[in-house]
């Protein structure tokens, strides 16, 4: 049977028999095999080329720009902008990425004495106040340095009060409860960065100079283009408050840093940041700041640019001096370097740059923030780099610096921590805190302005983990408030002998102060928080064994602004005014309060409702009347202070 079936296979059609004949070749043809091998080899070759060809480490050539006046600058920028590849080839790159998937101010020495624009400078006389049609200038702003006027939203003469809110500059007569707005100038609020807006009033009270930082730049067509920020400066003739008119304008590309009015000139510091991703040496505006003069944009000349030998960052700090009335720039000097903050005195600008620095102590690697402080002299004929010093830590703000009798005093928050050479287990909480936040503390440095060397210091004077909240210097005394979380000590430093610096503190008390104000008579006023939801104003005084709290005024469920210029300080009468937002009652209540310190206690003498951002509110006491300004509103209250 079985064989019969096998025989039955003989019934298969002849074509199938022929098809299956043993002499029919069904082997895969060699050429297919060879082609397959060749293709495979080619793929392997291509893969090797893609994976293992080393990335180029050569600096890109910029020879095509040799005819440009900025060629020397371009060459420097080319070097700093060049980033060598992190990996040797694609294989390393892919390996690293796969591994990741699988496992869970320039430090550059600026050459001192670099000469810039040769135009002579007339320092003017900050003290003389010419009597003009608009009256006599009266300082309202609590300037850090005498004679160096700071930008503010309120200025006054003996006739008028000038106040700048978000939309306009208003001029008010000074008439007590009969006060009214006489005129105003509307701002171009397009792309305005409100937090940095302010103005100056000239000594003769005839000119207001508005400083208007913007996030976009107006081009020649009068349109705002998205090429980056700029600082606009506008001068206004306010001799007739009812007919305020624009008399001049200036602009410079970049971010606003700070400004001052000194001796009839506006000193403007701006920062021009070179965007590496947009850097194109064929387009000058990607690497050189521009200024607007007489309606035309022009690049800073290469002779206006100071390039340090050791360049590490693509940022300029531009120092511009403008005539207060005409806004004609006397000087434009761009330092190709860095600056995160500036402290300005009558003669010098101190530019700061903070960065991380690695070191080793007792065989252990550590990392901390350090700050380079560069002094630039601006009042002479030329703008010059005077010297540079490096201190540990970072400074909180301009008040952390003070120049006094040839010594620069600086208070910093230091934050040394162990470098991540080995990872800590997450169960080690204390060690993690130390590593993560560093063992922060506070330090005081005294630097000689003759040779820019540290001549005295008090290192880590605060409890561990504390950070500097506020600083104030007053000649031979320095005040520092530090805190961690919501408690602070306040330190009083005796700086009369820098070879023997002593200090006292309050010990740990509730709350912390974000601003310290010397009220005179050895009283120190601190404005800050009592708890995370309260506003606290406290008075301290030095005593034999330390520093004690004299009195405090605290508002629960309230907010305030840390903007120092929003505080009204009257040392003569012991007054302090500020805007607050009160959340304690139903709904939000925006207010302005004025406190009086009588030597023993702080108590409110004015408490009015006043709309607006606390940072923009302003107040001033004139002849027994407290004038308070907010957003589109003002209040006048008669007081008997």
């Amino acid at each position: 049977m079985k064989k019969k079936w096998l025989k039955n296979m003989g019934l298969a059609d002849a074509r199938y028999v022929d098809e299956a004949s043993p002499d029919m070749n069904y082997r895969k043809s060699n050429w297919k095999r060879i082609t397959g091998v060749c293709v495979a080899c080619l793929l392997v070759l291509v893969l090797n080329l893609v994976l293992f060809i080393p990335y180029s480490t050569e600096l890109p050539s910029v020879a095509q720009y040799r005819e440009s006046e900025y060629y020397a600058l371009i060459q420097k920028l080319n070097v700093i902008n060049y980033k060598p590849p992190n990996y040797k080839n694609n294989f390393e790159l892919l390996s690293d990425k796969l591994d990741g998937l699988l496992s869970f101010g320039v430090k550059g020495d600026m050459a001192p004495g670099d000469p810039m624009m040769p135009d002579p400078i007339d320092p003017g006389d900050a003290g003389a106040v010419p009597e003009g049609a608009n009256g006599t200038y009266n300082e309202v702003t609590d300037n850090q340095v005498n004679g160096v006027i700071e930008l503010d939203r309120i200025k006054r003469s003996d006739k008028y009060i000038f106040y700048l809110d978000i939309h306009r500059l208003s001029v008010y007569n000074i008439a007590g409860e009969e006060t009214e707005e006489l005129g105003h100038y509307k701002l171009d609020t397009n792309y305005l960065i409100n937090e940095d807006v302010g103005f100056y009033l000239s000594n003769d009270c005839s000119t207001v100079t508005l400083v208007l930082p913007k996030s976009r730049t107006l081009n020649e067509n009068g349109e705002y283009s998205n090429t980056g920020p700029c600082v606009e400066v506008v001068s206004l003739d306010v001799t007739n408050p009812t007919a305020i008119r624009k008399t001049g304008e200036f602009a410079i590309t970049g971010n606003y840093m700070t400004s001052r009015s000194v001796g009839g000139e506006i000193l403007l510091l701006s920062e021009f940041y070179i965007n590496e991703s947009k850097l194109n040496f064929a387009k000058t505006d990607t690497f050189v700041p521009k200024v607007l003069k007489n309606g035309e944009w022009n690049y800073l000349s290469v002779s206006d640019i100071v390039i340090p030998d050791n360049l590490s960052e693509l940022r300029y700090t531009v120092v511009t001096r403008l005539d207060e009335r005409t806004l004609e720039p006397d000087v434009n000097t761009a330092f190709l370097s860095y600056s995160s903050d500036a402290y300005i005195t009558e003669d010098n600008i101190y530019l700061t740059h903070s960065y991380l620095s690695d070191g080793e102590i007792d065989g252990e690697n550590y990392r901390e923030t350090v700050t380079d402080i560069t002094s630039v002299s601006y009042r002479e004929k030329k703008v010059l780099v005077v010297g540079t010093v490096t201190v540990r830590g970072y400074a909180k703000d301009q008040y952390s610096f003070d120049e006094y009798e040839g010594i620069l005093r600086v208070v910093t928050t230091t934050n040394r921590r162990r470098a991540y050479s080995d990872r800590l287990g997450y169960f080690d909480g204390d060690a993690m805190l130390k590593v993560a936040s560093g063992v922060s503390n506070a330090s005081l440095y005294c630097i000689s302005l003759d040779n820019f060397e540290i001549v005295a210091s008090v290192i880590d004077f605060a409890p561990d983990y504390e950070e500097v909240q506020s600083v104030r210097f007053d000649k031979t005394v320095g005040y520092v408030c530090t805190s961690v979380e919501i408690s602070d000590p306040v330190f009083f430093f005796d700086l009369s002998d820098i070879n023997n610096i002593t200090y006292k503190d309050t010990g740990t008390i509730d709350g912390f102060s974000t601003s310290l104000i010397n009220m005179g008579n050895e009283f120190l006023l601190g404005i800050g928080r009592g708890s995370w939801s309260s506003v606290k104003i406290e008075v301290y005084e030095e005593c034999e064994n330390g520093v004690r709290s004299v009195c405090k005024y605290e508002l629960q469920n309230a907010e305030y602004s840390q903007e120092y210029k929003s505080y009204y300080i009257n040392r003569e009468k012991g007054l302090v005014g500020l805007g607050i937002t009160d959340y304690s009652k139903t709904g939000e209540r925006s207010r302005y309060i004025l406190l009086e310190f009588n030597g023993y206690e702080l108590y409110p003498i004015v408490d009015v409702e006043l709309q607006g951002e606390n940072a923009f509110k302003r107040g001033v006491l004139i002849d027994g009347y407290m004038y308070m300004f907010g957003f589109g509103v003002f209040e006048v209250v008669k007081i008997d202070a």
Partner: protein
Amino acid sequence: MNDEKIIDLYFERSETAISETSAKYGGYCHTIAYRILLSNDDAEECVDDTYVKAWNTIPPNRPRRLKSFLATITRNLAINRIEYETAKKRNVPICNIIDEFYEAIPEERADECDRLVLKDAINSFLSSLDKRTRVVFMRRYWYMMSVAEIARGMDMSESNVTVTLFRTRKKFREHLLKQGVEI
């Protein structure tokens, strides 16, 4: 000489028909016979018998494909010889192929069946296969080639050939059941 002319020689009763046939297909027929009989002498005898049978059947038959015509004769003669050998209780190595193939036959269909129906069933099955599978199947159960020989000739692995044969036998079984082949 092409197949048409060789067939014409048969029709002309020319004795050169046999020599021409031997020259062209002698080795082919020998291979078929040898695979079944595994003996050169027996294979030679089988091939000679193939020529005789071809002479006796052409004419009147005029095969369209001379090669497969001769191969079928040789195959049948060789299988008949196996029947003879097994009847004489002689060792027949081909039995494993027979047993293997018989697995594909449904038990209930193991009896005799109508020849035309069977032919139709077999050929319809073969036509349903892809060429490569069909060639493997035919080489195994028509040409009685070993798995190794089939693997070499088809550029396949032996296990691949074995699996192909297993699956095809299974399909053949299902096909016969569907066809309702009365065996």
